[in-house]
């Protein structure tokens, strides 16, 4: 956003003499100050002179505190004894303040009133001053003809007066106007003429304005070095004068400048600052502009939902301040976000295009064309897409927007390839690279390489295509260093997941499976690996991700969760209307909280470059050297021709195309979920032999598809499964295997990626985990899950006298934090929930609140094993790049080498039985895997359906986590087999019992 001209007061002016108004000027409260001014004006005999003094004070405030400036100027204008000339001057200053406050329409009204007064007095100098001031707000309102007419009138007068400084002001205003219409070179010419009018050693502020606004043009023309120098110079000048709001405006411009160079974290931090100052000043225009530009950043980072919300905020704010063009820009970004989200935008594009055409904004008309081209392409209307993309290309080229023109070239190259003309696509992309001449923005570099690779593949050059795609991945790795960690990184990498799949596919086609595996691994859960690397190098909890301004939202959300939990458990029934209201409020709070946290985390992540550069991609050789002889790792990936598996052991490596596609597997997984869901409502049917046969049949088909082709390669005792997104939550350990189940012969663990698995394994070796601490149990039972209490005591007793138990109100978040740091085994038994819309808010209930991902991030977990005995505690939203988002992620990042957590809603009875058996075994130092095997077998004996015995998955490094003392299970306790199975309250609705033991 360009900065408007300041009043023509040289900054070197002498200090004014003391006046009776000084007390008012010194009064910090604007309302009180204005009251003092009015009182002084009404007392004074020299009221016009006093009004002049007030106007001068207002002028000095315009850039520091425009609201105060406006109030002062209005006070002067309202004084009855002031001359028309003085009132006009006061109105002019008030107009300037209104422009700064983002109220261009009101500003124009003030200027028009001033002009009417000056028509009477016919003071040419004052007339010109007002006309100059009108140019900027008229441009903002899209009234360009009136703006140009005002400029002509002002220029005529000032040329007659030989007023060089005044002419400079007009040139600046004209430059701003041309900039708004995307005529950057013309704008630069006006700014240069303005600079030439200004003596080098005077008018620092005006020169700084020229610098800043020229830098915006240079940035648009991709002359980044020159733009950077001018931004720095302008900022230093404003800072020297203590003009905080103007410094904020420069920073705002620098934010966008950082964004276009791919420095997302820097951009977001600067936007955060700009927003804080604009909020403080009540600058609606600036706030709207921040929201608009943030929307663009979020889109580029692959976060369309956040982008759409920001664009909606921007459109609403711009609408309020009557900025038609900017509102239309916001609509375009909304439409783009909707398309990226997979939706169809409404007819906002036509409305926006009409506005841009009326404004004469060729660049934005071209943006509309490019967007429409993408829409036509997705509908298969390739000819229309080509016409639109060509039109967009020409529009960008005419305006000198080389990078945007190249974006259109990329769309055209894609269309060439789709039309079976890959060589044309290659020629177009090579031409585009030449035109960029080293000025490629980082994402353009990635996209050009990617589409070159695809064109080469289409032309039959498999090796060349694979090489270019691999280079695109390298470029992306360099580029992603500037993306804030975690949420932003997940979104960024997920939005580029097509490139990963294309690269792995091309490398496989080129006969390079080992390199393909490394590319696959590079794409998997990379944001999580970054966090683990950061954690490993700092040894500290992820403090950068802590929440700084979201406590109020958390409290409100947790209160909503508690209301919903009580309703869901049947403990406190809400009316249908009330339930709908609570759900709506919950959804809204979740969105607001998650978005706020993302922004906090992004703004706090000041040095993301170091993280990314520290993350060294895993090689096959390194993985094999770190796997023990008992372990086989199977990593799945989804490619255009279906699912593939890489099978890695210490001594072997194999690749297998499985011959099944992701949707087929997802459908089978959904069917399994249907079988599980029955336990909530139709327990007798769910527990029937029929249901078990149906589930086993379904799981057999999954096993045949996913493990059948590679089963003979799994000869080790342990299998580590690295799933692809479609396989998230698929229970490999519950796959039928011969007459039994896979988990009876193979210990199955899960990891989001091979790199994450190695991180977890390294924690055991590094002796970071607590080896001699107690077992700590935190338990929050209630009437809906009463066996939690019993489970807590059985688990604690199993681990001996040093075990600690905190039940109900004792099981606080503070206790959790302390126990996580000092305990060897941490067991949490409570209610849990997965939040599919905002997986990072998935949580478990503790006595004084809900513990979610961010709460766990802030914890130092040194326990050898964390057990989350709750519903859905291991469920994660898995992004396209394979990054899991949920509680499990939190525990892995916080330091846990292994986590036992559930993948679905568990029954109180079978969960208690499972956990008690597991810990009795664990305490006997048999290791986590054996304890798990025994627990599953014990539960299966009483509850044969996998719903009961397969709910808990072991994540991370499965070895280790043995008890500290080899001892028999405590003889004084009831053995798990004696646990009474309560009838479920489902009986109330269906006359059935939820858990029906078959033995």
């Amino acid at each position: 956003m360009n900065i408007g001209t300041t009043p023509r007061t040289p900054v070197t002016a002498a200090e004014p003499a003391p006046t009776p108004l000084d007390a008012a000027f010194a009064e910090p409260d604007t309302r009180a100050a204005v009251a003092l001014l009015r009182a002084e004006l009404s007392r004074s005999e020299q009221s016009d002179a006093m009004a002049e003094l007030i106007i001068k004070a207002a002028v000095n405030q315009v850039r520091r505190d425009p609201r105060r400036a406006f109030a002062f100027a209005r006070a002067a204008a309202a004084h009855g004894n002031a001359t028309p000339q003085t009132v006009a001057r006061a109105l002019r200053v008030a107009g300037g303040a209104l422009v700064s406050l983002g109220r261009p329409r009101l500003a124009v009204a003030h200027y028009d009133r001033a002009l009417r007064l000056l028509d009477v007095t016919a003071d040419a100098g004052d007339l010109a001053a007002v006309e100059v001031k009108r140019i900027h707000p008229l441009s903002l309102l899209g009234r360009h003809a009136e703006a140009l007419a005002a400029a002509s009138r002002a220029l005529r007068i000032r040329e007659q007066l030989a007023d060089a400084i005044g002419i400079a002001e007009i040139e600046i205003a004209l430059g701003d106007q041309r900039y708004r219409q995307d005529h950057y070179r013309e704008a630069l010419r006006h700014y240069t003429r303005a600079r030439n009018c200004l003596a080098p050693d005077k008018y620092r502020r005006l020169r700084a304005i020229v610098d800043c606004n020229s830098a915006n043009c240079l940035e648009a023309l991709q002359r980044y070095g020159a733009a950077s120098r001018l931004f720095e110079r302008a900022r230093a000048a404003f800072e020297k004068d203590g003009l905080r709001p103007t410094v904020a405006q420069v920073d705002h411009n620098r934010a966008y400048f950082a964004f276009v160079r791919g420095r997302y974290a820097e951009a977001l931090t600067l936007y955060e600052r700009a927003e804080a100052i604009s909020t403080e000043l009540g600058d609606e225009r600036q706030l709207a502009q921040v929201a608009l530009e943030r929307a663009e950043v979020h889109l580029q980072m692959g976060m369309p939902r956040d982008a759409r919300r920001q664009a909606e905020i921007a459109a609403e704010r711009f609408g309020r301040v009557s900025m038609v063009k900017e509102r239309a820009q916001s609509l375009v970004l909304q439409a783009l976000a909707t398309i990226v989200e997979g939706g169809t935008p409404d007819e906002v594009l036509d409305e926006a295009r009409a506005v841009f055409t009326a404004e004469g904004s060729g660049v934005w008309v071209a943006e509309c064309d490019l967007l429409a081209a993408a829409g036509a392409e997705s509908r298969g209307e390739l000819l229309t897409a080509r016409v639109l993309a060509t039109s967009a290309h020409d529009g960008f080229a005419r305006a000198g927007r080389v990078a945007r023109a190249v974006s259109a070239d990329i769309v055209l190259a894609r269309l060439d390839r789709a039309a079976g003309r890959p060589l044309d696509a290659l020629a177009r992309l090579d031409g585009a690279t030449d035109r960029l001449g080293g000025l490629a923005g980082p994402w353009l570099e990635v996209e050009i390489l990617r589409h070159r690779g695809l064109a080469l593949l289409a032309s039959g050059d498999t090796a060349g295509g694979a090489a270019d795609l691999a280079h695109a991945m390298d470029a992306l790795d360099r580029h992603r260093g500037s993306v804030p960690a975690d949420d932003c990184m997940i979104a960024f990498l997920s939005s580029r997941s097509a490139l990963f799949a294309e690269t792995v596919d091309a490398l496989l086609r080129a006969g390079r499976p080992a390199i393909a595996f490394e590319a696959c691994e590079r794409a998997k859960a990379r944001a999580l690996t970054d966090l683990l690397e950061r954690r490993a190098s700092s040894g500290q909890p992820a403090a950068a991700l802590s929440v700084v301004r979201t406590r109020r939202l958390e409290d409100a959300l947790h209160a909503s969760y508690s209301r919903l939990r009580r309703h869901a458990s049947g403990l406190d029934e809400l009316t249908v209307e009330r339930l709908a209201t609570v759900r709506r409020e919950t959804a809204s709070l979740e969105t607001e909280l998650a978005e706020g946290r993302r922004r906090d985390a992004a703004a706090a992540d000041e040095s993301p470059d170091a993280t990314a550069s520290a993350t060294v991609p895993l090689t096959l050789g390194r993985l094999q050297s770190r796997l023990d002889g008992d372990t086989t790792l199977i990593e799945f990936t989804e490619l255009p021709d279906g699912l593939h598996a890489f099978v890695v052991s210490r001594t072997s490596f194999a690749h297998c195309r499985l011959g099944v596609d992701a949707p087929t597997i997802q459908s089978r997984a959904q069917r399994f979920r249907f079988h599980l869901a029955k336990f909530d409502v139709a327990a007798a049917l769910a527990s029937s032999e029929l249901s078990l046969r149906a589930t086993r049949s379904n799981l057999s088909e999954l096993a045949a598809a996913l493990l059948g082709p590679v089963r003979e390669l799994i000869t080790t005792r342990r299998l580590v499964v690295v799933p692809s997104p479609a396989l998230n939550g698929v229970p490999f350990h519950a796959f039928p295997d011969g007459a039994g189940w896979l988990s009876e012969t193979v210990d199955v663990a899960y990891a989001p990626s091979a790199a994450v698995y190695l991180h977890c394994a390294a924690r055991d070796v590094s002796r970071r985990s607590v080896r001699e601490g107690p077992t700590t149990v935190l338990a929050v039972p209630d009437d809906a899950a009463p066996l939690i209490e019993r489970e807590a005591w059985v688990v604690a007793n199993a681990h001996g006298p040093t075990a600690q138990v905190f039940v109900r109100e004792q099981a606080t978040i503070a206790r959790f934090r302390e126990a996580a740091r000092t305990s060897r085994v941490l067991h949490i038994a409570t209610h849990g929930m997965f939040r599919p819309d905002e997986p990072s808010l998935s949580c478990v209930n503790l006595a004084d609140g809900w513990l979610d991902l961010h709460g766990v991030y802030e914890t130092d977990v040194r326990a050898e094993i964390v057990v989350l005995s709750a519903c859905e505690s291991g469920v994660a939203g898995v992004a396209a790049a394979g990054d899991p988002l949920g509680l499990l992620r939190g525990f892995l990042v916080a330091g846990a080498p292994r986590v036992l957590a559930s993948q679905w809603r568990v029954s109180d009875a079978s969960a208690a039985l499972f956990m008690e058996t597991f810990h009795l075994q664990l305490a006997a130092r048999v290791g986590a895997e054996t304890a798990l095997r025994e627990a599953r077998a014990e539960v299966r004996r009483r509850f044969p359906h996998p719903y009961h015995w397969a709910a808990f998955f072991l994540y991370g490094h499965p070895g280790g986590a043995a008890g500290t003392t080899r001892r028999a299970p405590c003889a004084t306790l009831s053995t798990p087999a004696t646990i009474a199975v309560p009838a479920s309250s489902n009986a109330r609705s269906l006359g059935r019992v939820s858990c029906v033991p078959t033995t």
Partner: protein
Amino acid sequence: MTAPSRAELLLDTDRAAAGLGMRSAMLSPRQLVFRHGPHQLEILAPDAGAERAARFVWGQLVAGVEAPCADTGVAWLDGTGVVRSETVTDEFGEFRLAAPADEGGLRIDCADGSFVCWVPPSRRETRCAS
């Protein structure tokens, strides 16, 4: 030809608490249970927030706990009673059926006649969460 009779809705988790004995804090995905004579139909409704193309109903039709109704025709009717998709149950009495309309029901075509299970509109917000 007479119109198919209407099955009795025994349970709609949208309108009832999920019940005790679970360690979950939230309601499960929407499920409905119908009864018609000896037949019981249990369905898992599509997520109200799911895209139209991804809206599927999973169901199981039985005539007793261990008596699946195999090879039985099942159709999804839109709000006006027009058939929008059809399938048959498998050996376990289970089926998966596209449910493209927001409102509608299932028509079950058994050997001894047809009946319809009308699915009341969801009371949930489009965000599926709770």
